[in-house]
């Protein structure tokens, strides 16, 4: 389990996270949901220890953050074009040299799954295919948790569909996935848990299927209630 406990974060005098707490289980797809600017990316950065927090703690399987955790968590940032000057094939070889936890078989499965051509240069790919490469690089690591920042942003509907299919596949296996997004309707039926964020705080945390079963509400219904839109 990944636990975020009472995390506070300021940029200068501006409070970005104001006591954020939630959990994400292994085997679950947890979705951090909220409009742009509520602190979704900052939370992921805090989990990865890429930005210092002022207060609170983050536990990974009950252990505090440590250099060792990078063998257990992969972070797929938004819009970062990884290794742009390389072909996909070269990038895969590079990753294999660089990471002990690189799983070559899964990488090949993913290339097939995403229908990518390994001789293509990454910088020449469409935005959708570049997003697939970023996902591929993260998913091919044998880690327990995968964080994805806005994996669907700025991507056409067909590529979105292909990417979302990854979530029901063996390529995710029983790992814990945390994704951030501001657009849920495409993937409502794929996610387990929803964490709704307002300005630097958690407004609601719930399992989507429980909400449907107990209240007869879709995720979007709950969002409408919570955000009072």
């Amino acid at each position: 389990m990944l636990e975020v406990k009472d995390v506070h974060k300021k940029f200068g005098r501006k409070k970005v996270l104001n006591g954020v707490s939630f959990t994400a289980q292994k085997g679950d797809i947890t979705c951090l949901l909220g409009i742009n600017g509520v602190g979704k990316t900052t939370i992921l950065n805090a989990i990865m220890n890429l930005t210092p927090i002022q207060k609170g703690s983050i536990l990974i399987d009950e252990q505090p953050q440590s250099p060792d955790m990078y063998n257990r968590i992969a972070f797929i940032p938004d819009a970062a074009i990884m290794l742009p000057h390389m072909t996909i094939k070269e990038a895969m070889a590079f990753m294999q040299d660089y990471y002990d936890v690189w799983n070559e078989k899964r990488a090949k499965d993913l290339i097939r799954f995403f229908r990518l051509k390994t001789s293509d240069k990454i910088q020449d790919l469409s935005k959708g295919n570049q997003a697939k490469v970023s996902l591929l690089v993260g998913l091919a690591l044998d880690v327990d948790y995968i964080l994805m920042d806005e994996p669907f942003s700025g991507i056409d509907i067909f590529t979105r569909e292909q990417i979302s299919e990854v979530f029901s596949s063996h390529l995710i296996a029983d790992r814990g996935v945390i994704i951030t997004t501001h657009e849920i309707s495409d993937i409502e039926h794929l996610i387990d848990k929803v964490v709704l964020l307002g300005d630097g705080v958690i407004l609601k945390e719930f399992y989507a299927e429980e909400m449907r079963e107990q209240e007869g509400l879709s995720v979007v219904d709950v969002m409408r209630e919570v955000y009072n839109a």
Partner: protein
Amino acid sequence: MNLILNKRDPIYLQVIQFLKQEIISDQLHPGQEMPSRRQLAQDLKINPNTVQRAYSEMEAEKLIYTEPNRPSKVTEDPILLKQLKSEWVNQAVKDFVNAIRTVDISIEEVTTMIQSEMNHTQLGG
């Protein structure tokens, strides 16, 4: 496999309904291996945990059974299958009666219409 999901009903219940229909219409026949949970999740584009839940419920209802380390299979129990079919038809009849309950029409007329529709459907395959 094609299942159009609505967003407000629990997905595992929608999956169970779908699978029951597949069994009733013999798309999945008695004793046939069920798709793996992962495979069905991918075919229906849903969360594997949801399929797991649907399978567990169907196992509890004995509509599918699982021997250790084997894929789940559709029940071969004729009584259960018959019961499943009659429950399904019962529900359809209830829905139908409910839908026409405010219409001024005699039971004879309705019966004739059902008869003709059934003939028509059978002829048309």
